[in-house]
């Protein structure tokens, strides 16, 4: 048999992905049925197969449900708002009235490229109840001091505001591309028929952007379900576990307390949720097309 050059090109990447991605995924699945922990790290004989125990424990644990609820709260509020903000920004920047588009686009995009850890630290101080920028700004519109990160009611909204600020620029760029693909004639025709701005938006812009929106929704959702650095830096999951996210919980169980079996089970629940979310989005899209 002759050596085929294609394998030379494929081998490095596929081997790497197989060894360092697929094998770990399968191992994680197996580990999630064991009580692998710090004892087992010291001595591989000290673990047991425990069947579905980790999953039972998980679903019986209030903290897990709290983390799940928090994460959904974050995704469901933060996702749509940030997509709406992105779309709004994209439409304004796509407007023919505006010049210097490049500069504004750059400004809005700035937070995207920055390091999440660094901006989380910056925002932690911005949220300071006494000296923070935010409360100072709000004092001009007559809003009383809010203990953003210390109050269990406001802690999650604080993280949501940060993440919208950090991320809207990314989707904005994709929306701008989508908007530029909409043929100008469609709007002209609508104008002739006497459609107002809102009608043009709902009847032309939104339907034409549907594929883009589905794509954006999927990537935004996948990203948001993995919320970690913001609560890790700003609140450590508190107060009252109000900002404990699934990934933060997984990290704490796995790499703080070294309950690796249990932690793997959490990771798989996260996987199932993301998978389900993606499938639903794709199904919605298919139905629209049909």
């Amino acid at each position: 048999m002759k050596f085929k050059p294609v394998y030379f090109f494929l081998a490095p990447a596929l081997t790497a992905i197989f060894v360092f991605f697929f094998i770990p995924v399968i191992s994680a699945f197996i580990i999630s049925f064991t009580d692998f922990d710090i004892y087992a790290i010291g001595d591989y004989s000290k673990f047991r197969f425990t069947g579905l125990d980790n999953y039972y424990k998980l679903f019986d644990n209030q903290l897990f449900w709290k983390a799940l609820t928090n994460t959904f709260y974050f995704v469901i509020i933060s996702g749509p708002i940030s997509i709406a903000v992105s779309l709004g920004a994209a439409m304004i920047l796509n407007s023919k009235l505006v010049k210097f588009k490049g500069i504004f686009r750059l400004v809005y995009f700035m937070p995207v490229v920055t390091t999440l850890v660094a901006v989380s630290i910056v925002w932690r101080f911005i949220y300071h109840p006494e000296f923070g920028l935010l409360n100072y700004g709000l004092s001009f519109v007559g809003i009383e001091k809010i203990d953003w990160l210390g109050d269990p009611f406001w802690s999650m909204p604080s993280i949501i505001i940060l993440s919208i600020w950090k991320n809207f620029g990314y989707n904005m760029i994709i929306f701008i591309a989508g908007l530029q693909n909409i043929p100008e004639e469609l709007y002209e025709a609508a104008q002739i028929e006497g459609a107002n701005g809102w009608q043009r938006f709902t009847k032309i812009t939104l339907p034409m952007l549907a594929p883009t929106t589905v794509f954006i929704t999927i990537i935004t959702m996948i990203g948001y379900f993995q919320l970690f650095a913001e609560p890790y830096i700003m609140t450590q999951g508190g107060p009252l576990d109000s900002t404990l996210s699934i990934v933060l919980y997984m990290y704490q169980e796995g790499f703080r307390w070294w309950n690796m079996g249990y932690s793997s089970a959490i990771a798989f629940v996260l996987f199932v949720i993301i998978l389900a979310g993606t499938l639903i989005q794709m199904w919605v899209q298919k139905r629209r097309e049909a």
Partner: protein
Amino acid sequence: MSSYGKQGGLINRLVLTGGLVLLPLILLLVGCSKQESSVKEISFWGMGSEGEKIKILIPEFEKQNPGIKVKVQMIPWTAAQEKLISSFAADNMPDLCQLGNTWVPQFVMLDALEPLDDFISKSSKIKAENYFTGIWQTNEVTGKIYGIPWYIDTRLIYYRKDIFKKVGYDEPPKNWEELLDLSRKIVKYQNDPNKYAIYLPTNEWAPFVIFGLQNGSDILRDNWTYGNFSAPEFVEAFKYLIQFHKERLTPMGVSQVTNVYQAFEQEFFAMYISGPWNIPEFKKWMKDSTGEKWGTMPIPGKHSSPGVSLAGGSSLVMFKSSKSKPEVWKFIEFLSTKKTQLEFYKVTNNLPALRSAWDEPIFRDDPFIKSFYEQFQYVMPTPKIAEWEQIVFSKLQQYAEYAARGTMTAEEAMKEMDKGVDIILEKRRWMISRY
């Protein structure tokens, strides 16, 4: 060929130079080259300010032992335990380190520590009888000694003398009832929604355990294999502390106090349960080093003072993975002489573990340290199990916050607490049944 030849040439050169630069670099960084030399280097991890200040003592040791070099790494207290465990998981342990004595059992259980009995029996410098018995025993796990006490501490109450006097307490409170009464009076006297009597943050577990121990709780039952937090002894003590939150005698959130010393100085609260490491800071912030305005007092027990507090402090431990055990032992011996211990006290304010050091006037005459000496007569260790940190950090603090904020009643919180603790201890039960 010619159409792409030129560009290809450029890329060619780029890749070649890039490769030539990067490859040795990668090799250099990946294969950590081990240097062999006559001087042995031992690595020491110290926590917080100890890790920083111990450097002052090193030159003397290196002068006495020219063949040994000590490399110190400082680890922040806040992440110390986490960091040690993850280093163990990553096979990245130092030769020796300082270990909070509640952590010793955990590392014994992981088989990470070297038993020191052989070294001790041959040593002329380190003997059990030189130490406080209660403290020495915290280092004994399953009949073997794994750590040498380095410094000792315990928790007691820092308080504002001036405020106490203003509400009619010339003498510190003597029991739980007086402590609560005093706190109510302080809040009433201050008459300011931003001023409290005592600072009992729910993210500090120690007071909850201390008051539980005072009330006769054994914390964990059946050879430390099940939680016993929902038993009446602990619940009663827990409720007593939660009372302070309910009556707003203590600030609710943790975020309100960023600087405890400043808050203490500004009368944000008048009492704070903490250890000896805070004495210098309080002296500095209160601008009072003689004890006019503030002082330290043993924690009042349920019926009489002093009540029980925790047997704390740090021990010096040697890791099994160390390749320079005799050198490490020499360093431990050096740190355990009276001279070094006193010097160490001067730079860090950590109280010496060596009993003979306590005869020095600096301890006998210091008004703040006297109360610590008193408190040391009434100290108890926490359960010697590996899961202890997880229990108090991930569970006790969590449920204390729930109860303090009224999301759960004290009874409910402790029931949930036991449930969580029993799950954590499941592995321990299995290990005990197996080995």
